[in-house]
């Protein structure tokens, strides 16, 4: 498994971990009816900002830990970080897929809004589509790296 593949797995792990904790907390808050009040949308906004910060922090920490472990395991204190044209092409394909999935999720959210869903539920659909888009994009990149082309 190449360095890039392992890096993608680290990113996937961080995303799944952070979003799992986020949705678990959100589920509890929904059951407590915290989003039904007048401050419901403000609470959603605050939760999303915390989610974004947590996602960045988790990715950074896991990447640092991974690089340390990778350097120790390979015995190479300065592993090669060459990013060539093929890597950029894979990254673009992953980004393209991520945008398709996120866009589809956003469209679904708008349909839900039109159907009369609550605002906080629509925001949750958008967040889920971002999470799914990120995961799908990374899975496509991983698939391309495993296939080699």
């Amino acid at each position, binding site marked *: 498994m*190449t360095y890039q593949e392992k890096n993608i797995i680290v990113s996937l792990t961080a995303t799944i971990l952070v979003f799992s904790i986020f949705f678990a907390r959100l589920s509890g808050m929904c059951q407590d009816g915290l989003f039904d009040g007048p401050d419901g949308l403000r609470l959603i906004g605050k939760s999303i900002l915390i989610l974004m910060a947590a996602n960045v922090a988790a990715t950074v920490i896991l990447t640092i830990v991974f690089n340390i472990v990778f350097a120790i395991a390979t015995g190479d204190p300065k592993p090669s970080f*060459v990013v*060539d*044209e*093929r*890597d950029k092409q894979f990254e673009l*394909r992953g980004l393209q897929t991520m945008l398709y999935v996120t866009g589809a999720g956003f469209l679904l959210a708008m349909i839900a809004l039109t159907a009369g869903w609550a605002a906080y539920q629509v925001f949750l659909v958008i967040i889920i589509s971002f999470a799914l888009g990120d995961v799908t994009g990374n899975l496509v990149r991983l*698939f391309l790296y495993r296939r*080699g*082309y």
Partner: protein
Amino acid sequence: MCACSFIAGGINVAKHHITNNIRRLRFDHDEMTQKALAEKTGVTRQTIVAIEKAKYSPSLELAFQIADVFGVKLEEVFGYAP
């Protein structure tokens, strides 16, 4: 993974008709390794592997760099079969 294959493969519709003699040229040049060629051209070894298998078409710049490493013309490294 079937969905990933559909998404990833479907985006790249054109089939690759570009052939190459990189493997033979490497052996003719003091049995140069894929890693050595990758380092000389500034790409990863996996990219060289994909190019040799004709699964990945390099950019024009990279193609010229590979030909330059072997000291031959571009046509002696790559061929096109429609």
